[in-house]
């Protein structure tokens, strides 16, 4: 029964062995694929049955872990979420754009991790307060209304798959730009009522190569597989900078 649904597909995959190759090259694989496969299933099939030397990252197969992002015919996509039936004749699989290649389809994420740490993506409290501990024992943890949760929940859905970095035209030109996911996650904690670290994060956000480097091409939000809308976060952060700037004009020092 399955054989009837099978078809032959030529898949072009980027190959790069840092010990032997100067530059990445491509290799073609002609394989029998099933209609209900995701792109990741085809890559796993090649790895298991055709060419065990192929290297790629993957884990959960359900668009949660964020490790299988690749360029499919030039577009950044999660391979576990993309149906192979979307590609009739030709499929070209490359490692995520705008990142250094480690090997084949595996990219080096260290640059992102550094940017990510910079925005302090955790709850920052001004100081550990006595009432914090009191609240903990009496009412449970910090209370937060559904409306307060809704203001940032969308931005907390980011899985760090880095598709937005591969799509961002500013990153392509200025690799030092802090980028969509890092801003979205920093902004997520700025919006969190439990957090008191917005001053520290805004100092980063309003420095060089940050929110105002964004030219609002909106590509990050177009490619995001979790509908995080990082472009909205970046522009909300810009607006926050404008509001604080205006407050600084009206209020005396420290008022903002």
């Amino acid at each position: 029964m399955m054989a009837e649904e099978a078809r032959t597909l030529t898949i072009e995959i980027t190959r790069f062995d840092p010990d032997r190759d100067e530059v990445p090259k491509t290799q073609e694989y002609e394989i029998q694929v099933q209609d209900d496969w995701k792109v990741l299933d085809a890559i796993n099939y090649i790895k298991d049955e055709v060419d065990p030397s192929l290297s790629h990252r993957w884990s959960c197969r359900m668009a949660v872990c964020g490790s299988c992002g690749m360029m499919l015919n030039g577009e950044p996509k999660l391979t576990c979420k993309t149906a192979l039936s979307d590609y009739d004749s030709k499929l070209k699989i490359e490692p995520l754009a705008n990142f250094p290649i480690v090997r084949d389809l595996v990219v080096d994420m260290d640059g992102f991790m550094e940017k990510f740490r910079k925005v302090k993506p955790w709850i920052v409290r001004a100081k550990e307060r006595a009432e914090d501990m009191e609240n903990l024992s009496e009412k449970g943890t910090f209370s937060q209304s559904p409306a307060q949760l809704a203001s940032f929940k969308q931005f907390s859905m980011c899985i760090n798959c880095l598709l937005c970095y591969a799509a961002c035209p500013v990153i392509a030109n200025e690799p030092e730009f802090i980028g969509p996911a890092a801003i979205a996650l920093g902004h997520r904690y700025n919006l969190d009522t439990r957090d008191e670290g917005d001053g520290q994060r805004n100092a980063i956000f309003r420095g060089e190569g940050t929110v105002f480097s964004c030219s609002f091409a909106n590509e990050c939000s177009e490619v995001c597989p979790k509908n995080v809308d990082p472009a909205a976060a970046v522009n909300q952060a810009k607006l926050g900078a404008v509001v604080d700037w205006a407050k600084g004009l009206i209020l005396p020092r420290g008022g903002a």
Partner: protein
Amino acid sequence: MKSLLLKLEPIIWLLFGAGLSIGTMLLTGFVLIVGLAMPMGLVDAGALDYTRAYSLGSSLLGRLVLLGLIALPLWKGAHHLRSLSIDFRGGDRDGIVGGLLYAVAVCSVIGIVAVIRL
């Protein structure tokens, strides 16, 4: 220059946003009315005859609207050209290029104001 631009980024972006809204919405509507609706007779051509346009343009409110209609899209244009310069790998020159472009936009507005003595 670069650090000055970075400091002024909020107001640069605010003026750009205003120019973007005006340039894409109001000016498009204006072109639709003057360039299409009037010649097609959908709007009475007398609505913007010389005396009416003159009195509109010489009231204080009219002058302020005209200033916004001219200055903000010019600022938006300067900002777009600055982004274009960065896109063409001009990141290192951004301070001087950006500063020059905004200066040209401001000078153009001053020039226009001087000529029509708003």
